[in-house]
């Protein structure tokens, strides 16, 4: 039955238990179609972004007047745009921008949002009231509108898009992490930690915080898709990535003028956005199912 696991160096290296835990997570994840489809799309996207220069057959900036506005063909899979640039190459390179903004903005939002949320949820009372009302105020603005305003102040640049979107999505993360912390605060292990003499800071970050990570991961991966979409919108509106950067949103904006003559200019970047959004959304949804303790209980 139980095997004596006296580790040689005497440290608490986690052996069987941790492996079992991971194995169970992997098994459940695999059985979840949504999560698997989502993960495949996200992995595909990440791989494309990493190997973009190898995949792209042309330089994304290289204009070629001879092949302006050509329909998809063997030489140009997705066709070419009004300046004769290869759309396939641009879409492939564009994945880097989308992922950079998506991951960058949401990582920032998670760091700030989680701290605010856990502190508010654990402390309660006036701290909670003040922090969350500020978050509510930020949430009252439509995300893109708020990001636009910030970009007008910060200046239209890709790194500013990341900052603006991190700010915009912080309240969403904070809200989720607050409600998770609120539930954890009532668990007896928190009281046990107080009774042991732990400081509030330690309880918040060492005891409560790890238990709020699951819902935050779910919210985070859903929000990556929103951030990607928002970046596209901002670039479309001209406040995000600047030409000739191959941002998908920017490409759609340019393609708009040629919708009737060269619909591929608009179609392929739009498809790419679709795939990215659906991928992160499904991954988030699937993660929620997999991490749901109620589903675990039935198992």
């Amino acid at each position, binding site marked *: 039955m139980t095997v004596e*696991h006296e580790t040689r160096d*005497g440290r608490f*290296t986690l052996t069987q*238990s941790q492996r079992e835990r991971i194995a169970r997570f992997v098994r459940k994840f695999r059985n979840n179609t949504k999560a698997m489809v989502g993960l495949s799309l996200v992995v595909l996207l990440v791989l494309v972004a990493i190997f973009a220069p190898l995949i792209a057959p042309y330089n994304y900036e290289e204009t070629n007047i001879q092949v302006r506005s050509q329909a998809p063909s063997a030489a140009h899979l997705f066709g070419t745009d009004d300046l004769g640039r290869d759309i396939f190459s641009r879409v492939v390179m564009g994945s880097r921008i989308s992922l950079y903004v998506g991951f960058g903005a949401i990582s920032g939002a998670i760091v700030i949002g989680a701290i605010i949320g856990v502190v508010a949820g654990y402390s309660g009372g006036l701290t909670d009231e003040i922090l969350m009302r500020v978050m509510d105020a930020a949430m009252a603005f439509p995300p893109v509108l708020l990001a636009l305003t910030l970009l007008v102040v910060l200046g239209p640049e890709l790194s500013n898009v990341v900052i603006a979107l991190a700010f915009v999505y912080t309240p969403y993360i904070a809200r989720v992490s607050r409600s998770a912390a609120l539930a954890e605060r009532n668990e007896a*292990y928190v009281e*046990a930690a107080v009774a042991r003499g732990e400081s509030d800071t330690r309880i918040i970050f060492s005891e409560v915080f*790890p238990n709020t990570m699951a819902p935050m991961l779910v919210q985070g991966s859903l929000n990556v898709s929103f951030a990607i979409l928002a970046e596209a919108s901002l670039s479309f509106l001209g406040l995000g990535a600047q030409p000739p950067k191959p941002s998908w949103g920017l490409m759609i904006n340019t393609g708009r003028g040629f919708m009737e003559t060269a619909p591929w200019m608009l179609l392929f970047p739009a498809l790419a956005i679709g795939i990215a959004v659906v991928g992160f959304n499904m991954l988030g949804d699937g993660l929620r199912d997999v991490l749901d303790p109620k589903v675990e209980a039935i198992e």
Partner: protein
Amino acid sequence: MTTHESDPSNRPLLEVRDLKTQFRTDGPPVVASNEVSFSLDRGETMGLVGESGAGKSVTARSIMRLIDSPGEIVGGTVLFDGEDLLEKSEAEMRDIRGNRIAMIPQDPMSSLNPVMTVGEQITETIRRHQDVSAGEARELAIESMDEVGIPDAEERIDDYPHEFSGGMRQRVLVAIGFSCEPDLIMADEPTTALDVTTQAKILDLLNEMQRREGTAVLMITHNLGVVAQTCDHVGVMYAGNLVETAALDELFDRPRHPYTRALIDSIPEVGADYDELPTLEGAMPDLGDLPTGCHFAPRCPHATEVCTRDGNPPLESVGDSSSRAACLHAADLDLSEPTARESGTGRRETDRSGDPLFEVHNLKKYFSAGEGFLGNVRLTREDGRPTLERRYVKAVDDVSFDIYPGETVGLVGESGCGKSTVARSALRLLSPTDGEVYFEGTPLSELGSREIRSLRREMQMIFQDPQSSLNPRKTVGQIVGRAMEKHGIATGDEKRVRVRDLLERVGLARDAASKYPHEFSGGQQQRVAIAHALAVEPKLIVCDEPVSALDVSVQAQILNLLNEIQTEEDISYLFISHNIGVIRHICDRVAVMYLGKIVEFGSIEDVFSAPFHPYTESLLSAVPHANPDRETDRILLEGSVPSPIDPPSGCPFQTRCPKKIGDVCEREEPVLESIDEGGHRISCHLSTAEMSDRASFITPSEPPESRTADSD
């Protein structure tokens, strides 16, 4: 009304044969109810007892065909009045459920729909099964509320569930259960969520309803005391199997299965003497990983090699008795005597000559009666002038007691009496409204938060729900080790060694350190919690209902462990429990609380013998004994506990006191005063003679020969 004329007189009402229910899992299916067979006659009460996970509820739900996926009934027959319920269509079952077989659920708080009046919920059942008009159904509903003893039924029928107390809600559920005059009632732990005085009333009600209506009852419970009070027949379940069925007296006089014996023995009885409780080693096996051979063999003191070899034994008649047992040795074993209680040291005498370790003086804790800054302000009219009044919940009102080194002081009382608040305020987990707490003579209010934090090393706490008190994201080693690190007791390799030693000390394997809490059973988790408390070598441990979430056999193990640790380390305990048997077993002195006040305080002998505070007396009399021969005349209290926002004037107990002497009780608040030199204090206007109608609750009613056998 339907007629069942075809009833042959000797046919049982319910006959379950080889009922098998299993749950699909990733691996092989888990059999939760394994070839269970029993029968129940009309008008009879059968108890189904066992620890959690034994398969009692699954069996009952299978009979009503209420098993949801991934569970499924895979075999057997359920003959109800001669018809096999497992063959019926779902529509036919719907006509039977609630009509001919009704269920009384466990939790009165969540079993009633909060947005429907209780009248609607009763008439709903009646109109579903009977062809009556709305008006007639209402009449019937009022009648049934009357029958279950809800006062002013006619006025209260349009009230919502939240307007009723827990006991009254359970009465509503009983009324719904009996509303269609069913042939069979399944009561699933009907009193588990209730306080002991309320439980006594509900059990009386169930007994009375059953006698009046001639209904058969299947009583599912883990409490042998409840069984002894209500049942004619008993079935004992273990790991999905019925291991013994017997007539009630037979079961208690001469159990045939070693598990039954162990179950009876591990209950700390109010009357029993202070000794080590006989315990069963280990816990019920995981249903997905059952031992080969007899499922009970690994824990059975009588197991032989045959038991582990020949598969799980079937339920068979034993000798010429009516009992049936699933044990290979049932015929040869004589289990009529209780397992010899390991002769402990007897009741230890605590030395109270020195200074107390811990003193609580006039502790008060008031909570604001509403949320937010102005939430507790209420407009009242006094002498015609509107005045603003702040309202408070007086959770703890003027409580004083002390604990000496090496002593266990109990706090006992029903839910809401403030016992947990006392503990938390005393430990400064809540800041008290008023009063002072001294630890080794130092008043805690004079300490800053940093000093309080380092004082936490001396005072630890064990919580009720071990699952919630251990951080699920940390390994047991991290949890226990952190406490040592925090107070600089040990770090690095020394810490690791000490954690492992400590885990071994509380009866866990050394490698438990690298596992997560969820990998342990409830009893083992509580052992981890005890190790966590012991890690800092405290002088005082507050135990807040430490065994109430555990099964009786595990409860006995934990109580013994706590006793053992106390003897070795000379730790003091403040022990909070609603279970009087447990208090009786583990405490040296006990404080009985009612509505935020201590009404009686003294040594176990003092409190459990005359003179009694009237509340103590009714509380003690309400405890169901796991002994069918023992009749205590119960003192049933009227009404329910008043709100602590608006406590009664004078004596807090005067509204329900059966011995109220009149005006003085309503006017003057009695003082907790000593009635003898031994420190026995009672807060009551009665004279000691008036409080001494009965002698004692301790006197064991065991036959004399078994007592001499014990003392040998």
